[in-house]
């Protein structure tokens, strides 16, 4: 359906305006202007920040340079989360552009993974896709694909090629008609309040009786507190791709259209800002 295609396009081409500034303590005599960039929501930090690195390397003494890392308001940003997820989780309700601080020293070993080359990102991305397909199709579709198809998925993401990516990805979004949907919905529920990184469990797109599960059913199952009971004010925002879908939205449709390129439905639950 043309609308669904538009949805896919809008999801893919979503951007976040970001301002990168070098950490104050690392600034040398050369002035380093902040660098502005529109980051793609669906990509990963270390994949799209080459220009940032080049820009700031000019201002930094060469002998001081180690691996570049980012933080926002004191929180080191994990590069292996999609950018959109990071933004929604940390800075959704703040003023745009999103201000990220660039560090070249004092890499926080405990918080962040090292990302020394693009192959690391590729490996992570592909493993997410495989995990998602394991949940959706018992890994049959991903295993039937050839290596060049996997490569095409990665290249599509790396080079920001919607058509190249979705030529392969649509196979992962298909399901046998008698099933009525995927075997299980791949999702991760992120939240800022607890120490758990995310919630990921098995959840069917439809009940055994044939009842289509909705987003509300998922939340009821996984994070009941997020659902506001009648009468109470809404306490939590449930964000997918930066928007709040209605709770009656079918889960199957959400998984097909609002997943990230890694085929996971990343859901962020934020407390409603009080002010």
């Amino acid at each position, binding site marked *: 359906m043309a609308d669904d295609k538009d949805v896919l396009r809008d999801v893919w081409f979503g951007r976040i305006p970001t301002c990168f500034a070098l950490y104050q303590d690392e600034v040398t005599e050369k002035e380093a202007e902040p*660098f502005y960039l529109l980051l793609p929501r669906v990509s990963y930090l270390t994949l799209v920040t080459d220009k940032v690195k080049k820009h700031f390397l000019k201002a930094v003494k060469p002998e001081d340079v180690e691996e570049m890392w980012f933080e926002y308001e004191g929180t080191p940003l994990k590069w292996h989360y999609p950018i959109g997820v990071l933004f929604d989780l940390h800075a959704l309700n703040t003023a745009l552009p999103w201000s990220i601080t660039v560090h070249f020293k004092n890499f926080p070993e405990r918080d962040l993974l090292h990302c020394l080359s693009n192959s690391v990102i590729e490996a992570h991305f592909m493993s997410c896709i495989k995990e998602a397909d394991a949940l959706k199709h018992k890994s049959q579709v991903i295993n039937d694909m050839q290596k060049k198809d996997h490569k095409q998925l990665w290249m599509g993401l790396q080079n920001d090629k919607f058509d190249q990516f979705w030529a392969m990805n649509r196979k992962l979004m298909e399901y046998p008609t008698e099933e009525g949907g995927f075997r299980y919905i791949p999702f991760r529920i992120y939240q800022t309040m607890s120490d758990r990184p995310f919630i990921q469990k098995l959840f069917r797109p439809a009940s055994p009786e044939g009842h289509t599960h909705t987003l509300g059913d998922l939340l009821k199952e996984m994070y009941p507190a997020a659902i506001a009971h009648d009468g109470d004010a809404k306490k939590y925002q449930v964000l997918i791709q930066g*928007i709040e879908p*209605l709770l009656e939205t079918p889960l199957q449709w959400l998984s097909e259209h609002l997943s990230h390129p890694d085929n996971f439905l990343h859901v962020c639950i934020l407390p409603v800002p009080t002010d």
Partner: protein
Amino acid sequence: MSCVAVKPPSGGRWKVDVIRQLKRRDQRQHEAFSDLIRHYSRMLEKSSISAGFLRTARVPSGPESLSQNDRLKTMTGELACQVVALQQELNIKQKVLEEQQSRLAGAQQGASGAQAEEQALQARAAGVQAANAGLKREYDALLLLHAAADARVRAETQRGAELLEDVIRHKQQAAARLNSANERRSRARQVTLQKDLRAAQETPITMDTFLNSPVSTSPPTDPPERAHTRPFRRKRRGNSVCSVDQEAFRPGRVCVSARVPVRARHSLDAHEQGINAVRFSSSSDMLATGGTDRVIKLWDVQAGQLNHRGTLDGSAEGITSIEFDQTGFKVLAASYDKSALLWRIDDSVPKVTLTGHSRKVTAARFRGCPQQVVTGSADRTLKLWDLQKAACVSTLQVFSYCSDLVCSENAVISGHFDGQIRLWDTRTASCTLELPAQGKVTSLDLCSDLRQLLSCCRDDCLQLLDLRGNNRMTLRAEGFKCGSDSTKAVFSPDGRYAAAGSADGGVYIWSVTNGDLQTCLSGKHSASISAVSWSLSGDYVVSVDKSRRAVLWSDI
């Protein structure tokens, strides 16, 4: 804000809500900032570029430029060296190229030379082929000529055959005419005979008339009858073997003294092939020789020369031995064709043929008065024959191949290959005495006084045996070798010498009295001598050899 015509989406209102929210999100986050960020990035680029220009435009400081100059100088020096080296390499390559080009030129020359040669050879080949074609044409022409000549030859032969037929026909006609003429004549004779007979029947005959009448009208071929012959017409019995006057006993001539020959008087090639036997007649100086060519030639000696007198043929194979009878008119010969033959010396056709042996007859001898002949043969028998009946009277089994035999009054003495000499009594037909010889006996001769026997042995010696006293003497000579299994040795007619021919072509003569070699006549024969014979007069010795040579020796 862009206005896009949006179709009302299908599905629930949740989809509408989602689409709307996405749009709003993009407006807020993306579109509001895109231009701004784009312009900012461009400004940043421009400033960094200009900063870069400023930096490069600045003159480099002193020490840096000097070192740069040095570096440049060293670089130019290195480059110059490289140029020189490359130039040298270039020269070398140039030289190599020239050499190869010269080699190429040489090879091309060689190739052109070879091509010229090839063309010359091809021209020669064409010439040879033309010559061949010419020869072939000649050959064809000759072939045609040959065919024509062949046809002519065939025509001629055919004509010749036809002519021959004509001649034969004519001859036949002539013969027929002759036959008819003869018949007519004989018929005429018969008629006259009948007339005469009838006439004679009518005339009365008395004994007187018959006795006084001349020769009767019997056919002229009959020999003259004796006076007391029966008056009836005798049946014609064929040619009788002998006639009256020939049967009269003639006393044998005796030689008083023989003379040892000294030199050869006459030497000739007497026969066509090798001569095996030679014999002087016992009554005259007539000689008979016979050999492999199946004929016996008669010679007589006149003034030291052998003159050919006649030839007796009729033997189917070679002659082994010859003997004259005591009258000298008959010749008996033994032959390889398993028979003995008897001739009259004036008739070349044999009178009697004695067949019955199963192998070659080696010796045939007249025996005594009553017309008997003894033959010895390789089939280990001796046969006695009666000449009147021309049949074998008795057969004596001897035990070995008989090579020669002699007859004395009552005995037959035979020499054998097993080295024995056997005496046979003809009346009892048994062996009375067996005497060992030195080796294979090849010939025997009895001396004229019938007392001494000379035997020739294969192991090159002659033996003299005294028949009455049983003592023996051996005659040997250096150089004397018995040449064959049938070499003949003879006594001289007076019994004082013994002669034999040797394989080396020499005639050896020993003295019998003391056993010494008297002389050796050589130089005339080139082959092994097969037989010798001493003339009854004692004057001549004839030797014959395997190479058909006969030599007459005498002492004058």
